[in-house]
């Protein structure tokens, strides 16, 4: 691999956003036909580096060398015409256009097309989808697709072009395991064609399974570069966060017998059917299954976002009205949703406002007037309890790193003194350091008698905190792995089956 010619090289890249130094003197070298992993904790600058190499952002300093020319800044069209393609972390697709138009868009822009042909776009799309063994209606509007399908469309769009360097910014977060498998096959095929692939992932297993070389970023600086053989799990984790990862199974034996959350045979047509389980005070229950198995929908239904048509959900014996978030909250359920940025936080609002958002009524007197002192005390307590790294509570929550933002979401719910804490993928896209902190919070809350329902497909994470793990498949609860049997192997085996 190291003999292959360099197709893209970045040297001494610096980039600041206001006060945030996102990249500091970062170098990156990409060779033809390699799979290059760009690793780093949240906010370490991976996405920023990709945006600079695709011409979306201009670096403050540094140079980019591509195809024998050196520049201080690429244009988007320039990068595309040099065969650079990106699957962005947020996909960057067009919800209001059809699948075919989405797939064909970049090729047309780069080709300076003036007139477009729907049929040609459709054909292009079908060709690419055949290659990926996909069957998505090219005439469907993108907004009608599921998140996983959109992810696949983004992949189609990237490889529909004449691609020489393919950046994939966390492309697997929304995919099921078999979709990930197909993606890996495509990656191998592209690699065989001499395409360079730059791959961002927080999943260490993926990193080792796929990459030839690894570049590790920390706080905007490159802290390690080398062939995959030069790393092992521990050294990678150390490079990522500068210390060893703790992911052993720490589960308290302090579970009470009293049932707190009772889910009794709830169904929602087309989503899930006859789900039943009981969770006790102090218990952390894992809920896992393939993407699209219905596990997220079960969580949504318990919180009242999706109505269930039969069965009942009760907290401490009190029934919750189907499809009524307010009744779930007043029964003591708290919910950390899967999409932090759009569902979890109010991005431009102050950290303090985010922290009180769920407990407004308890912070107001009978006439609806807020009690400023109570608010300030509550906010300070939470910041302390969650060890949030904040400048001032009046700063916008957008000024926080991803891990801290996620802790704000959890804190917002802790302020309501919940009986049941439901978390949907709380550590997705969160770096290892924050992840450990979040899992520790869950353990502490369980120890205080809160019931925790953790929806996740991160098996080591489930193993590390859960007393029991429930497995959902095709909308049904198919398995329960009891405490003594919770191991990485067991969970993985049973949820794939």
């Amino acid at each position, binding site marked *: 691999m190291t003999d292959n010619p360099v197709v893209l090289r970045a040297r001494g890249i610096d980039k600041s956003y206001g006060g945030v130094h996102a990249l500091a003197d970062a170098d990156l070298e990409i060779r033809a036909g390699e799979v290059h992993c760009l690793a780093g904790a949240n906010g370490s600058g991976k996405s920023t580096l990709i945006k600079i190499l695709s011409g979306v952002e201009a670096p403050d300093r540094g140079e980019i060398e591509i195809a024998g020319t050196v520049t201080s800044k690429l244009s988007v069209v320039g990068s595309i015409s040099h065969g650079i393609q990106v699957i962005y972390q947020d996909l960057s697709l067009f919800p209001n*256009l059809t699948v075919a138009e989405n797939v064909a868009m970049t090729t047309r822009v780069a080709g300076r097309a003036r007139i477009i042909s729907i049929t040609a776009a459709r054909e292009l799309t079908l060709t690419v989808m055949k290659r990926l063994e996909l069957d998505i*209606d090219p005439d469907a509007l993108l907004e009608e697709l599921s998140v*996983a399908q959109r992810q696949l469309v983004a992949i189609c769009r990237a490889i529909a072009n004449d691609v020489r360097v393919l950046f994939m910014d966390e492309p697997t977060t929304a995919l099921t395991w078999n979709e990930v498998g197909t993606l890996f096959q495509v990656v191998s095929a592209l690699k065989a064609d001499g395409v360079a692939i730059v791959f961002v992932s927080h999943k260490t297993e993926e990193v080792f399974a796929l990459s030839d070389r690894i570049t590790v970023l920390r706080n905007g600086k490159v802290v390690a570069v080398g062939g995959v053989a030069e790393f092992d799990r521990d050294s990678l984790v150390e490079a990522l966060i500068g210390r060893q990862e703790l992911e052993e199974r720490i589960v308290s034996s302090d579970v009470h017998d009293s049932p707190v959350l009772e889910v009794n045979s709830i169904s929602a047509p087309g989503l899930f059917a006859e789900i039943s389980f009981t969770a006790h005070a102090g218990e952390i229950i894992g809920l896992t299954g393939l993407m699209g198995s219905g596990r997220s929908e079960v969580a949504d239904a318990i919180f009242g976002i999706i109505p269930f048509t039969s069965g009942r959900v009760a907290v401490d014996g009190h029934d919750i009205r189907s499809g009524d978030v307010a009744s779930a909250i007043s029964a003591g359920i708290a919910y950390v949703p899967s999409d932090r940025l759009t569902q979890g936080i109010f991005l431009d609002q102050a950290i303090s406002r985010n922290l009180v958002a769920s407990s407004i009524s308890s912070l107001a007197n009978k006439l609806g007037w807020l009690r400023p002192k109570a608010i300030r005390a509550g906010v300070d307590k939470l910041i302390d309890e969650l060890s949030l790294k904040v400048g001032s509570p009046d700063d916008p929550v957008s000024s926080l790193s991803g891990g801290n933002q996620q802790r704000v979401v959890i804190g917002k719910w802790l302020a309501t003194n919940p009986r049941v804490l439901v978390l949907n993928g709380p550590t997705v896209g969160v770096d290892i350091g924050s992840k450990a902190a979040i899992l520790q919070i869950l353990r502490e809350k369980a120890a205080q008698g809160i019931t925790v329902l953790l929806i996740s497909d991160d098996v080591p994470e489930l193993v590390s905190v859960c007393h029991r793990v429930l497995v959902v498949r095709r909308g049904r609860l198919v398995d329960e792995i009891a405490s003594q049997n919770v191991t990485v192997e067991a969970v993985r085996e049973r949820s794939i089956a």
Partner: protein
Amino acid sequence: MSVLTRTPQFHIARLRGRNNEGVLLGIIALLLLLIAMFSPGTLSPAMFADILRSSVVNMALALGVLLIIISGGIDVSFTAIAIFAAYSTVVLMRSIGLDNGILPFLAAAVIGALLGIINAVLVAGFKLQTLIATLGSQGIVRGALLAFVGSVYISSLPSALAQIGDARLTTIGGSAVSVLVIPVILLAVGLAVVLRKTMFGRSIYAIGGAPESARRAGIRVGRVQTVIYIAAGALSGFAGMVHVALVGHASPFELVGTELTVIAAVVIGGASDAGGRGSVQGVALGVVLLALIQNSLVRLGVPGFWHTAVVGVVILLGVAIQAQSRRRRSKRSTILESAVTA
């Protein structure tokens, strides 16, 4: 991997049209039926000519608004631009003694385009929100017209222009169809083609749907916006001239104040206020629907004092139907998702 089978309701959705064109046609048919029941004598070919006549100017104005709404913006300055361009063209023609039937339309379009640059600078250059930018430019343009160009009613147009305004393409049931219908139809068809078939047109939808994605796909967002606002200015200027030619006089106080009606027509025609959606066909139906209502009130014998209220009810119905169908569409998306998981 995921398999998406096309469900039957998907085909029904296609029948309704992506922008509810089918539903709009239904409402129009219903209104015609009402007229046929309550005032059968007036349901004549002449009525269609009348509706065409009263749709022409709004249609020309709506084309520019459509461009901006698809791109995710909103414009309240276009009527000011329209009347500025048309009125100052007439003033200019009178002062230099020019008498021509074609040039004034071009001149008004050019003046409109120049005024469109103000919006382009504010939106594409300074990144102001479009409502703010066009509120500001509306005041500037209208104030400049009345302060510096003129504030008097010009009762007779240069004769060649007056002739164009009076020229009939044909007469349907005693009602004249102005030749000015032709350029407006040509512009509409042209814009429809541009929006559907050209990269520029698709870029407008892309920008309206997801601006940051558009930039990342290599679309020059600022440049497209600049062209949009200048083109919308030109269309408004042209529309202003059509108005002046049709009414046979030039008054600087006209058109301004009708912007919300035109926007309503565009939105009833299926353009999304959030951007990324809308079609020329839909807008044409929206414009015709509003013209039909306004033209039916007398025919249906609605008392004069109730006219505005009835128009309000119909606009409410129109926007409610569009909102409901959008909701249904987002529901469909979850249904499809469940079809995948099942």
